[in-house]
């Protein structure tokens, strides 16, 4: 029996009590995290909080636990809420919508629809075959990976509500505008012809119909397990690098190369970020450490967006339905949007 099955409640009372106990345990662990490591590393082990080793090790331990807790909490809540939405329903909502309104809706739905970029190709074919305009489909496919629940959780935990809202707002704007631009460019000629010839067969099954609360909770627990199993190596490498930067990198090392004084910093950060394949979980600890070293928020957000929104494996998958010209245009338009957002944030808020 899997963990999720063993945790499955048998009665409604046990279900809600179980959830309540889990939530209380989560908050307690989150609150106790810092005092626990302060006590263990500085008082028991006797590390010096001011030393490089001490602050590096403390950063690593404290951050690993904090990030793991945030991920478990947010992924669970988001997955349960998203179980009320489905790609099938999103497509039905977008069918017959004109460009403009359609792009705005598609970008918003991209955030709340449960979707993994491994389904990008069947969803693309399904949307286009159902008559959703190409630009509107693109808005959905851009916003879905760009505005990522893991990134929202971590940004909120590390930087608070301001940068989190900035990130969501910027992501929506990029998805809407890039979709509008791609729609205007009449890129249909660069879509593999079989996409337009595909006929939707079979009955549509809406995978969310008829789910009980127990099912949704179980899906949430399963999803937490699936995502954590997938991202923990990235996470540990990210936190390790973050700790190294935190404890060892000279104070002005990064600011002298990529600080506010370098006008090309955002551009370079995005160009480095596009081919990099990681996920928000691996990138955020790095972003936090670099921010502590004085790098501007706009540059860091642009870097993170480039990493999560555009990745080589996803582009290779999309090649099955899109011609290279369209993939290049797609990367160009989205990349330009991310760069613009980076410069805008740097100009408005600085560091």
């Amino acid at each position, binding site marked *: 029996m899997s963990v999720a099955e063993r945790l499955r409640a048998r009665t409604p009372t046990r279900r809600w009590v179980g959830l309540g106990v889990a939530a209380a345990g989560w908050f307690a662990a989150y609150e106790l995290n810092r005092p626990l490591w302060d006590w263990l590393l500085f008082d028991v082990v006797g590390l010096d909080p001011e030393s490089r080793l001490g602050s590096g090790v403390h950063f690593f331990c404290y951050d690993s636990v904090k990030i793991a807790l945030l991920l478990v909490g947010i992924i669970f809540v988001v997955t349960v809420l998203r179980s009320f939405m*489905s790609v099938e329903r999103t497509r039905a909502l977008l069918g017959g919508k004109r460009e403009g309104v359609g792009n705005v809706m598609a970008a918003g739905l991209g955030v709340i629809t449960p979707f993994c970029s491994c389904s990008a190709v069947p*969803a693309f074919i399904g*949307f286009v075959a159902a008559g959703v305009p190409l630009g509107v489909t693109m808005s959905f496919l851009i916003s879905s990976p760009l505005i990522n629940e893991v990134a929202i959780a971590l940004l909120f935990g590390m930087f608070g509500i301001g940068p989190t809202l900035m990130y969501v707002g910027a992501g929506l704007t990029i998805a809407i505008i890039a979709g509008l631009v791609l729609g205007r460019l009449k890129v249909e000629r660069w879509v593999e012809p079989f996409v337009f010839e595909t006929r*939707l067969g*079979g009955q549509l099954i809406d995978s969310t119909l008829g789910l009980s609360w127990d099912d949704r909770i179980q899906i949430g627990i*399963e999803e937490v397990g699936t995502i954590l199993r997938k991202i923990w190596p990235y996470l540990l490498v990210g936190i390790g690098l973050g700790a190294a930067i935190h404890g060892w990198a000279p104070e002005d090392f990064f600011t002298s190369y990529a600080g506010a004084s370098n006008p090309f910093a955002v551009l370079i950060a995005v160009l480095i970020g596009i081919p990099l394949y990681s996920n928000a979980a691996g990138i955020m600890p790095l972003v936090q450490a670099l921010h502590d070293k004085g790098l501007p928020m706009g540059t860091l957000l642009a870097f993170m967006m480039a990493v999560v929104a555009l990745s080589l494996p996803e582009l290779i998958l999309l090649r099955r*339905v899109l011609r290279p010209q369209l993939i290049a245009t797609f990367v160009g338009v989205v990349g330009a949007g991310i760069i613009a957002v980076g410069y805008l944030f740097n100009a408005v808020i600085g560091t």
Partner: protein
Amino acid sequence: MKIKVLGPGCANCVNLERVTREAVATMGLDAQIEKVTDFAAIVGYGVMRTPALVVDEKVVLSGRVPTAAAVRELLESLAS
């Protein structure tokens, strides 16, 4: 019984095939399991979230990897 696992070959699709084979083996079911990786064929079933499971040409599950026990339950209800 003809079972098809729809998916382009991502990690989730491999997992779904594994739990399905597990379920079929523990049930001692006489079933053929086939992988469908062609996107046009996948969408032809109306599936937009991979992986998906098709039993006797009917989509029974899409968009998530269930446990082997859940697949067994599903196949039992279809077999009877």
